[in-house]
């Protein structure tokens, strides 16, 4: 059996009963908490690159876990059939031997590193294999030359952007010199510029002869990298297409398959008209300045966010989008300038009350013991009586879930609880932080509709996003932030 050859022979996987705590803590997108798969047959020749795609809940993550020695080792369940990588049977391989054949680049750049600095992280997998120092340095040198992160090597990991972290993860994987590199939605948290670099690096890995398997929702950047696309649905392989045929699918065809765009979005101006009823009033930011220590992060002359409008806030990682959101919500106080709503300047405390935010990591903002309790939490008695909860549950697709613990729901459901809570608060300003990261096409359409509903009620809706597809689907206007000219004072 040749190095880098993957065979999947009549494979199925059924998740075992996870502990209650594990279920609570599970963050995975929508139904992918544990999608059982069955009857999977694949043969991936050495040096080829294969895409696993399909709607949320199709089982692509489960399949990737089997290939990467993560299931059943770390995600308990029953595997049937045989998965081999370079001739090793993955379903029974000791988890600490996985490092010898396969490396996985995970979705979340913040939770895949075991150390606190780039250099230590690159060495981690090699030190664990008790390699000689000279060998480790040589491998890191070679890997860094491919990914181009020499400038980052003496940095702390917490000082890096998401895009930079994914490059570090790729470098660490490469330094291991594995036969196979697996990617679990690596672009989920990245800006378009970072995705471009990631794609260049993946091309480099391919040319270096590694077998690549990529589970992904965002597809356009993989054109030119992959040889084949395997479409999964409902835990089974539905189609196995050569790349040329896959990328030639029409827009209607890919929508019907629940896939995201196959070609990069044209930077066309947003075509969605704003709600005409609410063009008066809105949020205005003027002469806003904010610094962390001596680093000027925010320096804006004027910016308008009208009511009834969905405004997308974009720009490279680290440009200060999140800081601007924190300023708007009053979680940070500006050094100078005003933030006013309908012509009245608001202090930070007032902005706390006026704004609600749907966070990227939505589990952090669910406090109630039940969905219904969470949605009404923090409301005044009068607001509580005025609220039409059944209608709100209906509108957010949460009917039947009102008695569940919000932390026990899937990622998409939890996000809808947070949206419902924002709607119940009737906040004039609603912010969304990267609401579609790591989520599939149907989810994207759903979130666009939820934002539209909030805007139609007359709210100022601001969405921080890198996702061109979401912008095209939902935004009425786009503001691209650029770094302040004076970075350091």
């Amino acid at each position, binding site marked *: 059996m040749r190095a880098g050859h993957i065979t999947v022979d009549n494979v199925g996987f059924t998740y075992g009963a996870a502990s209650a705590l594990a279920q609570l*803590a599970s*963050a995975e997108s929508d139904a992918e908490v544990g999608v059982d798969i069955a009857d999977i047959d694949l043969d991936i020749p050495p040096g080829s690159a294969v895409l696993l795609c399909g709607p949320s809940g199709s089982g692509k993550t489960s399949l990737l876990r089997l290939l990467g*020695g*993560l299931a059943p080792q*770390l995600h308990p369940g029953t595997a049937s059939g045989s998965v081999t990588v370079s001739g090793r049977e993955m379903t029974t391989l000791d*988890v*600490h031997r*996985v*490092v010898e054949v*396969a*490396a996985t680049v*995970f979705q*979340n750049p913040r939770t*895949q*590193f*075991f*150390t*606190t600095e780039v*250099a*230590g992280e690159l*060495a*981690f*997998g090699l*030190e*664990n*294999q*008790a390699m000689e120092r000279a060998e480790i*340095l*040589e491998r890191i*040198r*070679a890997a*860094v*030359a*491919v990914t*181009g*992160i*020499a*400038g*980052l*090597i*003496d940095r702390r990991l917490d000082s890096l*952007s998401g*895009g930079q972290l994914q*490059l570090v993860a790729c470098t660490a994987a490469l330094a*291991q010199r594995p036969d196979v590199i697996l990617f679990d939605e690596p672009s989920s948290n990245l800006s378009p510029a970072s995705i471009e*670099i990631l794609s260049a690096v993946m091309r480099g890995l391919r040319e270096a002869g590694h077998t690549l398997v990529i589970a992904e929702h965002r597809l356009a950047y993989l054109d030119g990298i992959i040889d084949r696309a395997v479409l999964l649905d409902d835990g089974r392989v539905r189609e196995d297409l050569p790349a040329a045929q896959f990328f030639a699918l029409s827009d209607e065809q890919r929508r019907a398959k629940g896939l995201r765009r196959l070609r990069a979005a044209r930077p066309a101006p947003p075509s969605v008209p704003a709600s005409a009823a609410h063009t008066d009033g809105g949020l205005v930011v003027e002469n806003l300045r904010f610094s962390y220590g001596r680093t000027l992060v925010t320096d804006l002359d004027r910016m308008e966010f009208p009511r009834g409008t969905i405004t997308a806030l974009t720009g*490279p*990682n680290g440009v200060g989008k999140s800081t601007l959101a924190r300023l708007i*919500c009053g*979680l940070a106080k500006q050094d100078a300038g005003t933030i006013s709503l309908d012509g009245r300047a608001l202090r930070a405390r007032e902005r*706390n*009350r006026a704004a609600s*935010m749907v*966070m990227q*990591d939505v*589990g952090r903002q669910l*406090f109630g013991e039940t969905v219904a309790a969470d949605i009404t*939490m*923090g409301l005044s008695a009068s607001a509580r009586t005025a609220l039409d909860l059944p209608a709100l549950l209906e509108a957010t697709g949460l009917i039947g879930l009102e008695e569940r613990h919000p932390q026990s729901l899937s990622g998409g459901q939890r996000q809808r609880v947070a949206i419902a809570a924002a709607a119940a608060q009737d906040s004039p300003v609603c912010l969304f932080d990267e609401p579609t990261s790591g989520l599939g096409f149907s989810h994207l359409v759903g979130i666009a509709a939820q934002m539209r509903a909030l805007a139609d009620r007359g709210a100022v809706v601001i969405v921080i996003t890198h996702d061109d597809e979401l912008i095209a689907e939902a935004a009425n206007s786009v503001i691209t932030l650029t770094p302040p000219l004076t*970075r350091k004072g």
Partner: protein
Amino acid sequence: MSVASTSNGPALSEDTAVAETHSPTPGDLDSAFRSPARIPDPRTILIVLIVINATVLASTSQILAYTAVLLAVICLATVRPRYALTALSIAATGTALALAAVAWPLPVLVFVGVIGHWTMRFTATAAFAVYALIAIRPSVLVAALRRVHLPRFVVVPVTVIFRMFPTILREAGAVRDAMTLRGLHPDPLSFLVHPIRTGELLIVPLLTSVIRSGDELTAAALVRGLGRPERPSSVFTLRFTSADVLLGLAGLGLIVLAVTTGGRAG
């Protein structure tokens, strides 16, 4: 394969994610795997930390206390000059209050003077502890712990503490933000008035998100060979430099001072 140059590779271009760094210094591999020469070995720092605590708290000698403050401030100045200045002013204020109490022994002044005296002493230990936290790189510490043959059940938790502590702080901050926006007021007052309710609101989302991070972290570490039967190697260079000699001598000086001057506290 030989790759002599560590210059930026092909993927690096101006408008890239990598260029998003504010000051991309060209990395030199070897220097990335050792601390600068002015930083002593973690073992030296930890031993002197123990010496400072033991001597300053066990001996009543004023000279010893001043010397310890001076040592801690100098060390801190090599990594964070501004922190050193803060520590120095705190210690100076404490000393001034203590001296004032000696000069004018009024009841109020004596009370304040005793507090000032102990503030000065604790500044020595606190400033050096802060220095240790800043100066010791986690990776170098792990290398040092491995070098002295500490078992894995000691080394791995140390790594995890360094790794998870900032995560927990970040998650707690995010949960607090969310509470603020929901009007759930996570201020100190509400902790006093409704300790259980406020604690519960904070703890449940915090626990779920930290556990989730922990699970993902564990998976990522295990598939990269954490827990393999062989003893891990270490790519970080440990070497004793003149900084270790200086710090070691200073620690020795403290012990000598403690033995030769002053009486014993308590």
